[in-house]
């Protein structure tokens, strides 16, 4: 049984073990997650798509406002089901439930722990991130083959945001400090991602900055999936992979520092 333990970094058995813990917990609260994942896009589409779309905005870049917002909201769903659960979940498990003490007493290293948590959140957010697209279809968005890639796009981006959340949780002293992160990082990035209004109407500085916003890249990729890809989308996907890889290393290093004295 133990002959191979510790022989390499990132052992699949350790990662699978940590993920199985998450799955066991998820089975107790999946209903709430599914409920809000379905309801939230409906609320947004009704408020923005029908309200704003019917009264103020006719369409954007040749798309109906429902098509525009419905595709854009995948990014919203992805960040809110990755960064926030990672921040709160990690902090609670580390600080209040002492879960990680028990996990690290088993043959699991911090790097495996962080990787497993990221993978689990990534899979979950990749799945629930597709819900806005499905809801938008009910409101008239036409299906397209390219949309089959949306779970992959959501997963890749969510990995990075999960890592971001873990790194934040490993760096703050108190849970209240999450407010700064939400207000200063998450909300601005979520608003200036081209979800609700197109970026090209912003001043040029913002447009350049938006290219560094992973959520903007995700929004563009999802619109590519729905309405036709362009060559630049490969670059967009590569940037999301790079984003997630960098944040992964930061999360591992922050968490190792927090967990090992």
């Amino acid at each position: 049984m133990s002959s191979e333990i510790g022989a390499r970094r990132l052992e699949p058995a350790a990662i699978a073990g940590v993920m199985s813990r998450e799955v066991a917990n998820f089975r107790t609260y999946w209903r709430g997650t599914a409920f809000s994942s379905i309801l939230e896009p409906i609320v947004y589409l009704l408020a923005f798509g029908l309200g704003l779309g019917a009264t103020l905005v006719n369409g954007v870049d040749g798309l109906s406002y429902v098509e525009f917002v419905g595709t854009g909201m995948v990014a919203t769903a992805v960040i809110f089901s990755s960064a926030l659960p990672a921040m709160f979940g990690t902090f609670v498990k580390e600080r209040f439930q002492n879960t990680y003490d028990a996990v690290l007493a088993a043959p699991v290293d911090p790097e495996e722990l962080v990787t497993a948590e990221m993978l689990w959140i990534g899979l979950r957010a990749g799945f629930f991130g597709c819900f806005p697209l499905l809801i938008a279809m009910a409101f008239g968005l036409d299906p397209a083959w390219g949309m089959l890639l949306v779970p992959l796009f959501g997963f890749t981006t969510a990995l990075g945001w999960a890592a971001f959340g873990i790194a934040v949780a490993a760096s703050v002293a108190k849970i209240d400090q999450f407010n700064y992160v939400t207000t200063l990082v998450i909300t601005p990035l979520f608003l200036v991602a081209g979800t609700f209004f197109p970026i090209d109407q912003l001043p040029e500085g913002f447009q350049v900055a938006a290219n560094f916003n992973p959520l903007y890249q995700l929004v563009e990729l999802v619109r590519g999936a729905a309405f036709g890809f362009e060559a630049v989308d490969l670059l967009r996907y590569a940037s999301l992979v790079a984003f997630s890889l960098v944040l992964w290393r930061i999360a591992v290093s922050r968490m190792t520092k927090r967990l090992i004295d």
Partner: protein
Amino acid sequence: MTGTGEHPNAIEVRGAVKHFGAITAVDGLDLDVRPGICLGLLGPNGAGKSTTMRLLTGQAIADSGELRVLGHELPGESKIARSKMGVVPQLDNLDVDVTVEDNLAVYARLYRVGDVAAAVERCLQISRLTDRRKEAVDKLSGGMRRRLLLARGLVHEPQLLLLDEPTVGLDPQIRTELWSLIDGLRARGKTILMSTHYIEEAERLADEVAMMHHGKIIARATPGELIRKHVGRETAEVYGPPDRLAELRALAESDGLRVRPAGPAIAIMGAERSANGTIPDDAVRRAATLEDVFVLLTGEEAE
């Protein structure tokens, strides 16, 4: 690497030092635990017991010194060592919304047990929770949760078990229940390192007691030997006004006896060796205990 020949001890610590900023939590610790014994690591709060436990599980890295668990050198081979050792934490960290059996199954997977279902059954029996297996942990009583926590640490049939203050903060009844469970493990030959600051726990469960103070072991032997060596057979406790106690203390000390405060009283140790008249008639004579040793050596009153 397997360590049975060259390193016969389950745990070997040589000169371990661990600082946290200006605090030296572990200060040149030497500690050997032979296979098959239950060693009680007894010390007041802040003695360095928890840090020692964390060093052994690789959750703290020693600044200097050598540590070996089941023949594996730490921290380099800590992961292999962890796969063969069970840890029961001081604080309950079960997953409270998850069922009893799923809690066990998750840890069976974390410890890479081949037959998860069989391991779960075995642990349900150990914790006597077979009929509660489908219930969420937060529906269990405090005693049941503690039994589950202990059983979880045994899910991979470890060679070595670390118990960190296994009964701290528990009701006396739950404590007794847990003691029986631990005693059963000891009887079956498991190697156990148990930290505690409860004298009675050490006395009841430990084959040997190592007293820890300021980050090092200051005495180690069987409870009986420690008592005989440091305090003798009999202790006499005297209650009374402070003046009288001070007088009696001086008298006993001039007689070569050791005296310690015991709450409102003084305890005169080695009373069987006293000259006539040193011990007043109203003193309560009792058999010497580990507590006498503990207070004498650490200067701190125990629980």
